[in-house]
């Protein structure tokens, strides 16, 4: 069972990218917590800020990007943003690890996969080369790689996509981190391999007890894996709820739109409902609500007043003025982006 003290606490995280006079506010005031042993999903489309959020947690933002002053990331009681380069390096890979989407570009093509897993051990411990190798083989076996001892001596190109993703997972978990950030871990994989990898992450979480921050655009993956879901749009959290509540009672018009736009197995073949327009550029978020141009409920208040996260239940929030004026749900209009025909995706 999840312990109730948060493992990670992110408060008002803002990560901006500077290009001349333009400022891309990719992540703009994001706050959330992850408890021990918990799986939290961040859902959003391209440009929502979900991946930049993940990179910010590991302090992997390079110029012209920076984490703005006033942002806070607390992990195991430590303030990650005040740590020096050595201290943060000690945390990366050891206490917080990351699994990327594309194992082929994240793995070194000229090192055997065993060496790559062993290297993580060598960086973070004083174990000998041989001991590190043994740890690597053990971990590879734990990720379900058959004949792990022989496989460890192979190079990434000799493995299938699913096997490479297992190697990535072994690298991430070999130090038994408290938090694993998985950024679209199965997006590049076929659906039957995806099922294997998701099952593996589940099993390993049960054995090792780590927390998982799962970043994905796939609502199906989130429904199967996460306990809590954060929906991002325009660099902000627009809705957060337990997975059950989110799928049963999505409140934000963007979350509702996403769920309706997705073709589902076994669903009647009706015309798909769409969200008109496209995600605005991070250099020019609209004033007030960032979703208002695409929203069928938008009214003048939405342009003038940036909506706060309204509390709905004990653990459900939505960044939409509809929570303050629920009667407005009865009046729908054609969203601006559809009316002007502008920015049709």
């Amino acid at each position, binding site marked *: 069972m999840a312990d109730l003290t948060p493992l990670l606490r992110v408060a008002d995280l803002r990560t901006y990218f500077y290009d001349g006079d333009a400022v891309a506010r990719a992540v703009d005031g994001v706050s959330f917590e992850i408890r021990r042993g918990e799986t939290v999903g961040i859902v959003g*489309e391209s440009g929502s800020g979900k991946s930049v959020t993940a990179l910010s947690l590991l302090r992997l933002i390079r110029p012209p990007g920076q984490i703005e002053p006033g942002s806070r990331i607390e992990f195991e009681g430590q303030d990650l943003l005040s740590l020096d380069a050595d201290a943060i390096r000690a945390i990366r890979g050891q206490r917080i690890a990351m699994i990327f989407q594309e194992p082929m570009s994240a793995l070194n093509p000229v090192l055997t996969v065993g060496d790559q897993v062993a290297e993580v051990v060598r960086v973070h411990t004083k174990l000998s080369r041989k001991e590190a190798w043994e740890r690597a083989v053990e971990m590879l076996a734990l990720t379900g790689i058959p004949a792990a001892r022989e496989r460890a001596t192979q190079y990434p190109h000799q493995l299938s996509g699913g096997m490479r993703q297992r190697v990535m997972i072994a690298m991430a978990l070999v130090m038994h981190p408290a938090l694993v950030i998985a950024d679209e871990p199965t997006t590049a994989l076929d*659906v*039957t391999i995806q*099922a*294997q990898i998701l099952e593996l992450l589940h099993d390993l979480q049960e054995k090792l007890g780590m927390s998982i921050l799962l970043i994905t655009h796939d609502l199906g993956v989130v429904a199967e894996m996460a306990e809590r879901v954060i929906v991002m749009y325009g660099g902000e959290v627009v809705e957060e709820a337990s997975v*059950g509540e989110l799928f049963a009672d999505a409140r934000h018009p963007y979350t509702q739109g996403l769920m309706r736009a997705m073709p*589902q197995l076994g669903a009647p073949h009706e015309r*798909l409902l769409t969200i008109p327009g496209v995600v605005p550029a991070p250099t020019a978020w609209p004033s007030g609500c960032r979703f208002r141009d695409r929203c069928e409920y938008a009214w003048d208040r939405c342009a003038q007043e940036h909506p706060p996260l309204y509390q709905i239940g004990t653990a459900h929030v939505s960044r939409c003025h509809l929570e303050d004026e629920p009667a407005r749900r009865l009046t729908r209009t054609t969203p601006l982006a559809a009316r002007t*025909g502008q920015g*049709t995706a």
Partner: protein
Amino acid sequence: MTMPLLSVQNLTKTFPIQTGLFGRPSSVVRAVDRVSLTLERAETLGVVGESGCGKTTLGRCILRLIEPTEGTILFDGVDVSTLGRLELRTLRRKMQIVFQDPFSSLNPRMTVGAAVKEGILIHQIAEGAAADRRVQSLFEEVGLNPAYVSRYPHEFSGGQRQRIGIARALSVEPTFIVCDEAVSALDVSVQAQVINLLQDLQRERGLTYLFIAHDLSVVEHIADRVAVMYLGKIVELGPAEAVYRDPIMPYTQALLSAVPIPDPTARRTRIVLQGDPPSPADPPPGCVFFSRCQHPAKDAACTQTVPPLEEKTPDHFAACIKQPSTLR
């Protein structure tokens, strides 16, 4: 019954993989292995399968963008497989393709209007001001502002580029379009817009689609019939509803059960396939799915002969010698 628009018989494509002494191919990969299918006018046939199953090669062989090794392709009564260059070019007016990544198929230095106009000029459908008017009306038809014709590809979002790719395919007034992962790279909200567009265009113009995709939910939504491919072969083929509701092949059953369902309360049996598909360079004898098959009755007989694609229930074909075992 009228003649189908497209009829493919025993289509095979092999690629040499190793060049031995004197540049001889020492072995071959059968990327597409004796595939037969038909497509009726205004129908959508979905082709699903995992990477390496041959679905993309199949689509390209039908258009002869890749030369098939063997087999015949009858399109509107014409044998495409034997056409010469010139005749093929004329026929291409009728057969078009929309790719997954429209950006890489657009010339970055050509305005998108010019890219759409190219086909109109080459095929002498219109010229001068009439060609320009045609481009503008195509832009409107695919939901793009006609004022955008003078812009360049990098100025557009992924969804807009896909609309440009569709306008370009439509410019020569085809009757048949191969959609090769045409909506796979798009975000959910944008993907729905493009799926609706493809369906509207089909209704308005009576288009026939070969819709190749790895996303099973998208294919169920758009296809009338579905072909499931595994290791170069069609292993199941039938009306979409039958294939999705009562899949016969153990592979199709596993594939469908692996799709994550966006409903946390959903309860179902998941078949997690073990291992990876075998190498197409060295396919196992008999049934290609044998190594990963979960059918309770699978036995040595499965490895004896290649199971033929047989009609198990009306219009529903499967390549399995065993009695269908249901999951649910």
